[in-house]
């Protein structure tokens, strides 16, 4: 009953928006990075979902299978995962440095410190 529907997309969108919400609403920088991760993984899920073919198998040629799921989205998402981890690594190293410079990883505390600095 579900295959052939749209529900996987909806759930993926829900997850995506959860991630986005974490990014926007949380002040903790690590939390933000986690949110970004959820957001990205959800988009990856979206791609993979659209590559799925009903009754297909993994796109590795083997005897006895004729229907394969679409390999192209998988390829793209391998790249996207790499991009994701690269971004995460860079973001986390920034968080570490920010913590060294401000002794906090809460965005609003940082903003307060910056405001004091300017004044």
């Amino acid at each position: 009953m579900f295959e052939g529907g749209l529900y996987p997309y909806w759930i993926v969108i829900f997850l995506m928006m959860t991630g986005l919400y974490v990014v926007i609403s949380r002040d903790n920088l690590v939390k933000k990075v986690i949110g970004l991760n959820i957001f990205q993984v959800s988009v990856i899920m979206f791609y993979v979902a659209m590559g799925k073919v009903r009754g297909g198998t993994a796109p590795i040629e083997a005897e006895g299978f004729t229907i394969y799921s679409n390999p192209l989205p998988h390829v793209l998402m391998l790249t996207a995962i790499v991009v994701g981890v690269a971004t995460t690594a860079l973001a986390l190293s920034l968080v570490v440095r920010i913590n060294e410079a401000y002794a906090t990883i809460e965005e609003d505390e940082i903003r307060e410190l910056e405001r004091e600095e300017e004044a």
Partner: protein
Amino acid sequence: MTGGEADLITRVSDDLPALQIAVPLLSAAICLLVRRARAAWAVAMVVAWGSFASACVLLSRVLQSGTISYAEGGWRPPWGIELRIDLLNALVLLVVTGICAIVLTASPRSLDQEVWREHHHKFYALYLLCMTGLAGMTITGDAFNIFVFLEISSLSSYALIAQGTTRRALTSSLQYLVMGTIGGTFLLLGIGMIYMVTGTLNIADMAVQLAAVGPNRTVLVALACIGIGTGIKLAVFPLHIWLPNAYTYAPAIVTAFLAATATKVAYYVLVRFVFSVFGAPLAFGELRLDAVLMPLAIAAMFAGSFVAIFQDDIKRMLAYSSVAQIGYMVLGLSLASVSGLTGGLVHLFNHAIMKSGLFLVMAAVVLRMGSTRLDAFAGLGRRMPFTMAAFVVAGLSLIGVPLTVGFVSKWYLVVGAIEGGLWPVAVLILLSSLLALIYIWRVVEVAYFRQPPEDAPEVSEAPASLLVPIWVLAGATVFFGVFTSLSVGLASAAARMLFGVEL
């Protein structure tokens, strides 16, 4: 030279589009390996100027024999990835590589001051990566490939921005990273949706397939996603909040480079998707993109300039000015006419020149004064006469004084607005340039008519290594303001091509 060698050279020169990307990317790895600051700089210099030369060759080829298509891996598009160079991206490529080379030439002295020397070779590696990413986004003919190269350029620019001397560079960089990643991911999502309904990733092919699909809800939202994605990288008005911080706290060299290239390429990507994928009739006729972008562009023009007026830090002031100038480019797009788009594209070219010039002036001022606060400019007109003269020239261009590039852009924008019957928009364009007059003139007034404090340290003129690039750019603002056949010729030809107007 033997026949074999000659043959090899022709063959390799056919592969110029691939080498345009491959060589800088490989050189970035080499920069990491050479470890010495000046050696890495030398490598980067050779590569950057080589890239520029190659971009010139590519441009002349496009002019001679039309669009160049190059199949990476020898796989025909749409199965493989295609590099596709036409008038539009040849122009953008020229800007990216040219500015990259010039700014790089100016970099050593400024970096010595702002970046730890042990990091210089990595800095140059990232700098080359950033250029490669931008150039890759520009000339690729594959939608997903745009995303990959976008991330190369983004990640390298986050790291470069974080090298600023104050701790706020770190927070600015992270802020940019978070927004940029969201933007990149939205772009990915948008590309995915088009891929979903067309089954292809090749941009040219997408356009063909999409025409058959026609406008539907998925396509509309895909356009919105791509708009948000590129809009964040482009710093379109409400999505611009990362830009002032990033430009202010990044090392001056990085700002000069990014301000002139990163947003421009994002603009290019937006234009590419709107015209080459969705097509003007769909994007403007059915999906009313212009109605969304125009108010934002106008808001950017005024908000950016207005906030710029009240900045005490001139680097930050110029950053806000960028927000406004990006508004002009977006306005050109949203006018949805050949003249308007010509204005937008020509402003892409022109703004790159003048903004990188202005930010290099900031680099010189930081080098000598240690600060870019307005107070630091007191009496600089006398103490750094050549630097400040360049500031005035580029500043006049920003205002849009005739015989500078800024005038040329504004001319086309105003013409586009009037042609489209949008009289109030034409008036607003002109009014907003008066705001530019105000913020530029604040600096001029302080530099020339305020005495430096008694205890001010002696400062000398900027070193030649900075001064020459500054004046190349300042000279270019005038040169291309008078001899417009290259910039305007290309931009209007590209605009006509995008609108499918035959000459």
